């Protein structure tokens, strides 16, 4: 009997508590910088596309929402001919970001992507590409990698050792 009255009193005391609801469209919730939201494709500090169309993100994607086609430009750089993410399928798991060898694909804390038309959730490359380098400001894949492109031979990358002469016996 006493416990019943105490329960009623304790519930009544909740009148003076702060309400936990965040009234979302009016008050924005705080999102950590690593929140996994809308996916973007970032660019080099020089402005070139980072994506080398290696298909790793499309392969790792558990819901198969990434589609792309690799091609090569006149400098021998691989890049995606098209890059398509179907956000109505995407579960924002972030595996594509983990898989990406060039930091091209990144998840941002933006989650407000509502659309009236489902077709509008299919983002093409021009929708995904941003103008900046995203979370990795100084990184340029083509400058540090050992891949040969026009204007940069093997061994000419930053911190890259000269290529081993496979015909010599000495180490």
């Amino acid at each position, binding site marked *: 009997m006493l416990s*019943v009255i105490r*329960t*009623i009193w*304790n*519930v*009544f005391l*909740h*009148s003076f*508590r*702060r*309400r*936990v*609801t965040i*009234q979302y469209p009016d008050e924005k919730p705080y999102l950590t910088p690593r929140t996994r939201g809308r996916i973007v494709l970032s660019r080099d500090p020089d402005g070139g596309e980072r994506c080398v169309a290696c298909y790793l993100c499309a392969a790792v994607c558990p819901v198969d929402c990434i589609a792309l086609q690799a091609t090569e430009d006149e400098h021998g750089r691989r890049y995606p001919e098209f890059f398509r993410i179907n956000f109505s399928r995407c579960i924002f798991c972030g595996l594509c970001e983990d898989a990406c060898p060039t930091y091209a694909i990144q998840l941002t804390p933006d989650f407000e992507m509502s659309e009236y038309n489902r077709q509008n959730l299919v983002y093409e490359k021009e929708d995904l590409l941003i103008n900046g380098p995203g979370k990795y400001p100084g990184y340029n894949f083509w400058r540090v990698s050992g891949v040969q492109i026009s204007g940069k031979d093997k061994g000419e990358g930053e911190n890259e050792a000269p290529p081993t002469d496979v015909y010599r016996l000495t180490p």
Partner: protein
Amino acid sequence: MTTPHPIASIVGVLIVALSLSAFLIWVERRLLALWQDRYGPNRVGPFGLLQVLADMIKIFTKEDWIPPFADKPVFVIAPAIIMITVLMSFAVLPVAPGILVSDLNIGLLFFLGMSSLGVYSIVFAGWASGNKYSLLGGLRAAAQMISYEVFMGLSLMGVVLLAGTFDLTTIVEAQRGLWYVIPQFLGFVLFLIAGVAEARRLPFDLPEAEAELVAGFHSEYSGMKFGMFFVGEYLGITLISSMIAVLFLGGWNGPWLPPLVWFLIKVFAFLCFFILLRASLPRMRFDQLMSLGWKVMFPLALANLLVTGAIVLAKK
């Protein structure tokens, strides 16, 4: 004292009671939210007040479906009964001096009789739905309301003994000096508990019991028939709160403020208390409900009646 025309009183009471019960839906949702550290409906209109209107538009435009296995005439008449009986009880309710539809000299008995008739609505609804869960809800309602009615009436007899009348207006005027909640505290508590059970509110809402019986007696109801049960329930709470205010808290009596305001304050406080009960207490088991009614409340009510009677006799 000038009394307004009876038709005016009837229309006034009807409009106020019905709009109040609609408004109560909003009050209940906001208060439950407050006690659960939420906001509740606050989007439609100022403070979400127009939510009631939106809900009403929705419920009026819903399909009114009568299941083919239902007993049609009884199914249709059941929601009407609860509305009629509860609204009839409002007729004898003395709101403020002069604001009263009918000054019956057996007003209290009329109220008890009408609330007993209200059981039929639920039993009929449970039976006519042709659904085992509804039937169980109806059976529970019958058992619960009959057993709680017994000591509901008995708990009021103390007040009747003190005031010497069944006339609600006279009872209110007899409380000018001292509210009956003080000499009749036990009766007040018993009536409060019985009132919650009569209104089928939360610690005693076994006829509905969403967790076990889908929605109990109104599982099969939809559209405005369901709405009538809903409004009937809220009208029932309002009625019980008003009755507590009239019988134990001196009705419109109170210093400084006008009588009507005092009455509304008291009724509103009890409405909030009913909602607080819903926010805090879990539903009882049915055997607990029955043994509480018959083994605890009933003897207490009898003892209260005996002691009050003895004191009244000794004072003579």
